[in-house]
């Protein structure tokens, strides 16, 4: 099985002005994503999922320092120059985010936004780009795509907007799609449809998907393999079946136990021990802020 994305000992640190250096946001992460699979990264908030995804996409802000190695199709991304990155980003990888509204220009017909993305990467005529954009809108399940080509984003529902964003992300046939909480803002019934769409795309095109989520349910619905993150570290990696049948790490076990959807109705839910609690991770920082506010 060929490897499309390979991370070796990846670390990300955000340099903050003054005061104590915070712990690294991503710490010593190594993993390999195989071509054609949907690989999930699951963890609670602040565990470093988005930072890791942004490191893969080279979308981190200037105050972030990345260490280790990130290879896409055997090409090193860390330290790659802007020119090379720009061409890679369009041709090999695409990213979608939680909030589809933020990825779309509110004043512009959605079809033109997709066509523009196509023309930025392929030497096609405006007419060809439009035809391809309509085909993509149809493919992601926008009914009557040709007629809706000229509609602006707010004429679409949240779920439809995320479909449009996916269509734009597919404009260049990316080999790797990085999706950061793509269904978190959607109602569950719509979430299920968008996940089915992502699954269908990888079946039809062999697109590899790196799917970031806080939701174990989403993982169980769509991922082939999954990595669990806590405090910037990758605690374990397993096939979805193995993870659910036999979680190896105490944190993963505690997280499963805390999920009410799996527990007997009305039973007290086992509480995550303090050493694995996201709240206790944050406590030092909050205490520092509280003392700072009291003194100054």
């Amino acid at each position, binding site marked *: 099985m060929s490897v499309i994305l390979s991370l070796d000992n990846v670390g990300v640190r955000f340099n903050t002005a003054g005061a104590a250096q915070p712990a690294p946001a991503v710490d010593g992460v190594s993993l390999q994503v195989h071509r054609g699979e949907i690989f999930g990264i699951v963890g609670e908030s602040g565990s470093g999922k988005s930072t890791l995804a942004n490191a893969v996409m080279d979308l981190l802000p200037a105050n972030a320092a990345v260490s280790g190695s990130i290879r896409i199709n055997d090409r090193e991304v860390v330290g790659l120059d802007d020119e090379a990155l720009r061409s890679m980003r369009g041709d090999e990888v695409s990213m979608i985010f939680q909030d589809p509204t933020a990825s779309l220009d509110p004043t512009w017909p959605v079809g033109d936004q997709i066509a523009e993305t196509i023309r930025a990467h392929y030497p096609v005529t405006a007419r060809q780009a439009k035809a391809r954009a309509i085909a993509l809108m149809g493919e992601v399940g926008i009914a009557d795509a040709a007629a809706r080509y000229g509609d602006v984003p707010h004429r679409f529902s949240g779920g439809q907007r995320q479909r449009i964003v996916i269509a734009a992300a597919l404009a260049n046939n990316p080999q790797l799609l990085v999706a950061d909480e793509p269904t978190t803002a959607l109602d569950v019934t719509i979430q299920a449809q968008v996940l089915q769409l992502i699954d269908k795309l990888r079946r039809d095109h062999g697109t590899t998907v790196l799917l970031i989520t806080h939701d174990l349910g989403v993982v169980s619905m769509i991922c082939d393999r999954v990595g669990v993150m806590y405090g910037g570290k990758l605690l374990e990696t397993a096939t979805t079946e193995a993870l659910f049948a036999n979680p190896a790490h105490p944190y993963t076990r505690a997280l*499963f136990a*805390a999920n009410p959807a799996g527990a007997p109705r009305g039973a007290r839910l086992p509480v995550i021990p303090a050493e694995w609690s996201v709240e206790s991770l944050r406590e030092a920082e909050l205490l520092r802020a509280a003392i700072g506010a009291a003194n100054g």
Partner: protein
Amino acid sequence: MADLLRVEHLRKSYTSGRPWGRKPPPALNDVSVSVARGRTLGLVGESGSGKSTLGRCILGLTRPDSGAVIFDGVEVQALSGRALADFRRRVQPVFQDPFGSLDPRWSAGRSVRESLDCFGIGAPADRERRVLDLFDRVGLNPALAGRLPTHLSGGQRQRVGIAAALASEPELIIADEPVSALDMSVQAQILNLLMDLQKDLGVASVFISHDLGVVEHVSDEIAVMYRGEIVETGDTETVMTSPRHDYTRTLLAAIPRPRSSAPRRPPCPQPT
């Protein structure tokens, strides 16, 4: 046993803001539910289905166009003066992120204290001790009493919100998405706390959530809302195991359920 809360044929439409715009469908369309003393009614539905509007109508914060909210045998809309103040003491809200309901300038302890003062609970000299009792009740470290909401975690803030709600010794809590903003591990703790309150204090609640997995866990009865209407209601077991309405079935099928035997798709074809 007589119901603690009865909601009868509530209707509520919001005007669309734009006079020339199309009239939006009603936020509540002939909604009736009831809650017995000490019981939890789960209210589930997708966003925009009218859950929060119903919650606010019960609390008397939004005026319905027609229909009645009857608390302990008395129609809420008819209340005024002392009787209204008494109703507000007995029915308390808990919101998704108490950031909105906690005063950002007040410490956690002050927020709870204000609640005691406002409803005149206990002798003034006794109230500091009551604040600490309430902190204890909701599992908050008393050392956090001096902290501002911005210096508390989401779970701690929600505990302060619940402590402030409990201060008036309410008989009914209207909890609108109380765990939706919380991480899974923190959510479990808050759900445990809410279940304890029901068990230990006999507080009844209307538990509003878009998440059927959570609603199922804490509720004695479930009402399913869809586009301003209650499309199905019944005891939790019945609704979960033999849903009658199509929308409930869709909701059940879409609920992501981690199970040790996760339903698997056929393996993905390897591209050549």
